[in-house]
């Protein structure tokens, strides 16, 4: 066939496409964090962990309704990435979003009160677990439809370029969303127009109950940008140092006007997809092994201890402080009033500006 003849001799390697590649550091392990940075990462990750544990308990008590997707196990991803961006850079994600909100600095009280559907919640109780926003913290949601946040995040990046404000948008999505068509529509436009967007794929290995291998023809999701000429790399998403280092590289790439960048975070969620998922599609041993050997928080705790930066007591003190913050949030989420009945009719449309 003519088409075959034109593709060259069999066995001859195809000419390599000029791949854009950022300069990468040698394999001497991730760039270490300073003592203060480690400590901050520890606090931030622990807050997410404890917050999610509390949310799980409250769900069990019937205080939180509907769908509730916990972030436990994936904390290093958002905390590491948050350490790679500057104020003003935007964050947008899907429905497993509590960790992202806390990492951007949103008030745990407001987040928890949204989970309980109270007027003190970020969306006055009208959005729930999957739909919260904070313009102040540049957090653009919180989106419930798998993959829909990817074009939206690309649009935030479009606005950055339009305004020439030098800002970058972190657009998070999971290994499940990575199979949505709109992701590739977005990749195409982002590279075509050189938009400052980092696509952070949180590969926690299961899209609901379907493993990556059972859903993806190409399981290396970092390669999903190859045909668009978008650079991508796989990152140890359980190591906050590795995440931050890769994040900095990606953000710098975007800020330099070189277009989008893909980071595939190899991570793991300890809990089921949502509260109603017993996670029978994977072995208990698999989860236990991850917890025992790769826990993102434990890794930092051990390093802090090893370096003798902190004593056992110091760490216990931090744990206590975090617990107090979470308890206060849980308290607020139960004492905050339900939204007034009149709120049913508000916020459907904005009033027209005069």
């Amino acid at each position: 066939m003519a088409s075959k003849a034109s593709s060259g001799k069999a066995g001859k390697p195809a000419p390599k496409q000029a791949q854009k590649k950022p300069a990468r550091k040698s394999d001497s392990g991730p760039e270490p964090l300073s003592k203060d940075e480690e400590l901050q990462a520890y606090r931030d990750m622990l807050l997410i962990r404890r917050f999610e544990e509390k949310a799980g308990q409250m769900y069990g008590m019937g205080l939180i309704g509907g769908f509730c997707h916990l972030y436990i196990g994936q904390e290093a991803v958002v905390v590491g990435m948050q350490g790679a961006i500057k104020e003003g850079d935007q964050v947008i994600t899907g429905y497993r979003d509590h960790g992202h909100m806390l990492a951007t600095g949103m008030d745990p009280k407001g987040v928890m009160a949204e989970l309980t559907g109270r007027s003190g919640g970020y969306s006055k109780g009208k959005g729930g677990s999957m739909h919260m926003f904070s313009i102040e913290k540049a957090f653009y949601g919180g989106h419930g439809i798998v993959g829909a946040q990817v074009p939206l995040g690309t649009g935030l990046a479009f606005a950055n370029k339009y305004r020439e404000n030098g800002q970058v948008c972190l657009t998070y999505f999971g290994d499940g969303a990575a199979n949505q068509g709109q992701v590739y529509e977005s990749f195409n436009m982002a590279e075509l127009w050189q938009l400052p967007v980092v696509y952070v794929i949180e590969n926690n290995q299961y899209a609901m109950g379907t493993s990556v291998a059972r859903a993806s023809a190409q399981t290396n999701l970092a390669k999903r940008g190859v045909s668009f000429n978008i650079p991508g790399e796989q990152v140890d998403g359980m190591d906050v140092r590795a995440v931050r280092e890769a994040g900095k590289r990606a953000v710098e790439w975007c800020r330099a006007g070189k277009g989008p960048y893909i980071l595939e975070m190899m991570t793991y969620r300890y809990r089921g997809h949502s509260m109603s998922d017993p996670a029978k599609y994977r072995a208990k041993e698999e989860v236990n092994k991850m917890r025992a050997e790769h826990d993102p928080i434990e890794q930092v705790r051990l390093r802090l201890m090893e370096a003798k930066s902190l004593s056992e007591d110091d760490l216990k003190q931090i744990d206590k402080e975090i617990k107090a913050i979470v308890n206060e949030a849980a308290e607020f989420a139960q004492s905050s009033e339900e939204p007034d009945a009149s709120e049913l009719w508000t916020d459907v449309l904005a009033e027209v500006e005069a």
Partner: protein
Amino acid sequence: MSIKVLMPALSPTMEEGTLAKWHVKVGDKVEAGDVIAEIETDKATMEVEAADEGTVAEIVVDEGTENVKVNEVIALLAGDDEDVSDVKSEAPKQKAEKKEAPKTEAGQGEKTSRESGEKAKKEASEPKVEVKSDPDVPEGTEYVSQTVREALRDAMAEEMRRDERVFVMGEEVAQYEGAYKVTQGLLAEFGDKRVVDTPITEHGFAGLGVGAAMAGLRPIVEFMTFNFAMQAMDQIINSAAKTRYMSGGQMSCPIVFRGPNGPAARVAAQHSQDYSSWYAHIPGLIVIAPYSAADAKGLLKAAIRDPNPVVFLENEVLYGKSFDVPKLDDHVLPIGKARVMKEGADVTLVSHSHGITYCLEAMAQLEEEGLDVELIDLRTLRPLDMDTVIASVKKTNRLVTVEETWPVCGIGAEIAAEVQAQAFDYLDAPILRVAQKNVPMPYAANLEKLALPSAEEVVEAVKAVCYR
């Protein structure tokens, strides 16, 4: 046998055009495929090729002639065995002159059907109903004749001059100047930063537009037609319409989705559908579907300024129609306000967009039969201006709705439900709906005609509710 060269159609909806230029003169020999002329509409310019070989025997329509009907003989070729001088057209030769463009809406200063009743009879297809001026346009305003297409373009250009945040994106909006030439000239004035050609990727660019709007820009997203917006439905409904509510009022989404909607001509079911009621169903959206150029301009400007997501449903068949447009520096109309186009005592007709054409045509006939019809153009479908409809029904006690979408769960169904709830005691007859037949749009010309609503059906429905 002489060979007739006919005025060609550039698009399924073209009815007439300008014969811009002849590239041949009498006596020239032409081969099949030779470019012999150029024709022009307000949308595009195209070359006319000879379909046969022969010698140009007569130029029937001079260059520069406007409003030449499709399929009119524009030249004659002599075949090989004929003498050029033997070939003569029967039609009188058309001199280059500006013919009076047919008006679909009788504007200021035009004669009414009553004043020229005889003429109206002869031109039954040309509606001759006197239309009330829009009370939202200041009295004494001058008007200029413009096509809907030009009015939409001017609306976008004016808003882009006014607000740096406004930009247009979509397929073929920039270099091609719009698949339907609505964005003509915008690239030249505003550059490719603000007039953005997208790949064919509706789901993606609709979502990208929504994201840009959430970041505070004011995107105008053009869908080549709303048929393709179904690919983007999730972003329009779930992302654009619902985010304000789900964020407790924190997030805004000031975006306009616009493009042609509704049945076009001879393009079959996938390219010929009216989505009015699909969008009108959704809380969090504003839905506008204008008929006239004046309303198209005034409402598109309002839509671009509005802080909410707006679905702006245009109509391909109306793009080339001319209307009187107010000559104002800033012609902005209120969203959510229907317009009484003509007052009447006997029956209320409610319609929107291209549905109005059937109504006007029917009304010319109904007036002759002594029925005094009130015509309401809804203009905005969400929020629906029920006050105007109810006030009218309380006066006329009879209602017929006309639309190009299917009747099931259509705009007419919604209006009928509201009217029976709010004005039950005022009704002297059941409410009737004229709509597209409950089938996908067929391609065949005769079946398509049967599927669409028609002036005859409007006449019939009006007579039925008047028990005539």
